[in-house]
């Protein structure tokens, strides 16, 4: 379906990503806790997946043939919630219940409360294994759907993740694609200071993966990379998506102190205004 992406489709996705960022900020302000930088940085990729790449049906989240999207670094789930709401999985209004008692929108994702999330995650380094298990099961049954796993870069400190990388390489799980949010930050600082990950590309290649580097904010690049992954039949594929933490809001971009805190209400207003005006390039209808 997505062999070639037209310019107007790209524009449409970019506008959608901006709307989703606004919903994200609103839900984080309402929650009063949570992560900001990582979710903003993954807004474009989530938008590309839910609005162009995935074979899915928001009205039938248990459809057997759906592509599976596994979120390994569960703490960025607010951006998944915002994207899913915009895609029609649940009312956008419900985003305001994020992290509230009784909500389906738990601080970290829980499949039991919302099956469309596919897995429960939060503790880092285990999502790629779960995605590999799904991909392996699909291969036993000769299913055509694809399994995608979104990971953070920081969670590559964890041994479990490399066990999964070795496993997927051994069994040549070509129906599995990993996407790493390579934003270079984690809670305590820069990834290369905390525990150096480089050369990440070469590490995955040595484990038997096909690896691509892309700009994680370029819709065309995101779509093209996933297309290329589908054409690789003998290996799993890893997309190293270079992203800017906090992308879209100048004050947050590149600042690791925004990893684990939400905007205060007045900051939220300021950020929403920045998103609505595309950083002052256009006049906001709210002004």
């Amino acid at each position, binding site marked *: 379906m997505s062999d070639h992406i037209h310019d107007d489709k790209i524009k449409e996705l970019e506008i959608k990503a901006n709307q989703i960022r606004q919903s994200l900020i609103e839900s984080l302000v309402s929650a009063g806790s949570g992560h900001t930088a990582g979710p903003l940085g993954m807004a474009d990729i989530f938008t590309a997946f839910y609005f162009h790449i995935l074979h899915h049906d928001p009205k039938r989240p248990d459809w057997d043939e759906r592509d599976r999207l596994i979120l390994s670094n569960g703490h960025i789930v607010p951006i998944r919630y915002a994207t899913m709401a915009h895609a029609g999985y649940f009312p956008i209004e419900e985003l305001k219940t994020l992290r509230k008692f009784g909500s389906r929108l738990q601080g970290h994702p829980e499949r039991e409360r919302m099956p469309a999330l596919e897995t429960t*995650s939060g503790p880092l380094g*285990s999502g790629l294994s*779960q995605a590999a298990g799904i991909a*392996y099961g699909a291969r*036993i049954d000769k299913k055509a759907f694809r399994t995608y796993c979104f990971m953070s870069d920081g969670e590559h400190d964890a041994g*479990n993740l490399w*066990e999964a990388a*070795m496993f997927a390489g051994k069994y040549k799980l070509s129906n599995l694609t990993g996407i790493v949010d390579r934003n270079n930050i984690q809670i305590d600082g820069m990834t290369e200071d905390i525990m150096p990950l480089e050369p990440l590309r070469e590490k995955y290649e040595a484990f038997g993966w096909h690896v691509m580097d892309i700009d994680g904010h370029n819709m065309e690049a995101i779509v093209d990379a996933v297309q290329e992954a589908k054409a690789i039949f003998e290996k799993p594929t890893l997309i190293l998506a270079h992203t800017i933490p906090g992308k879209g809001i100048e004050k947050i971009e590149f600042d690791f102190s925004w990893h684990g805190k939400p905007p205060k209400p007045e900051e939220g207003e300021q950020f929403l205004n920045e998103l609505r005006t595309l950083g002052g390039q256009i006049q906001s209808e709210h002004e």
Partner: protein
Amino acid sequence: MNKAKLVDNLADKNNLESFPTRDGFGKGLVQAGEQDERVVVLCADLSESTRTHWFKEKFPERFIQMGVAEQNLATVASGLAQYGKIPFIASYAAFSPGRNNEQIRTTIALNNVPVKIVGAHAGISVGPDGATHQQLEDIALMRAMPRIVVVVPCDMVEARKATLAIAINNQPSYIRIGRSNTPVFTTDKTPFEIGRAEIFRQPAVTADVAVIGCGILLYNALVAAEELAREGIEATVVNSHTVKPLDGKTILAVAKDAKAIVTVEEHQISGGLGSAVAEFLAKNYPVPQEFIGVQDRFGESGEPEELIEAFGLGVEAIKTAVRKVLKRKS
């Protein structure tokens, strides 16, 4: 008598068949694989010693070799179960659910997918391998976790039945199996149902004590009960193979009858079957209780029978505990 349909020559230990519970698991696994093609088996480089190699020989396309990677073992299985398979994951209990406890918690229990965790080489009876491999905390680890069914079979025959039962229960489950040869004293006709304790010995008169056990030490409990009967002490013996969910109904009934309890398990006294029984009775019908189990220490190398005696899990230790609890009866 013998409603439990145990072997006729129960007391004749030298003439009983002797096999490890892992053999029963291995046989049950093959049978489960024949009955349901969703059954897949993942093993962490221990297929012969966990007896999953029998499944591998029969169903190579459904056997997944994971290497020495127990965290990946649990989490890949989580994905397979989420997709629709029934994965059994086999390793030593020291490593699974030992090393991968968080992965089991998040991706199996909280995620609520029907992965079957097989803890092999559990207990002190592992023998010469020593303390690192003698898992004595696994029942506590698994029992404390919401949603996980915990089953501890007493012999090879029961291990086969338990394996078949958890294959179809559609719940995350833990089965504990052992390495060494132990008496086979139940039969194909012995009733087995997850969550239902079986009374293996019922005195004709009101019992003086109820011995509630799980796993291979249940045989010692039965021998101890026969020997105590000659002293005029009558003991009920209950096989509480399912530690979770605990069969409160049966335990309450035997506690009301005997008014004194001894629990028996090859596990730390903290957090295992004894704790489960004590928690239940403290709330519903408090009676004196003594605990046969490992007394808050690690194991060591030795022969299985030698270790069972040295760690206070033998027939004499059970008899001593019974006499002690009887003194505490009001």
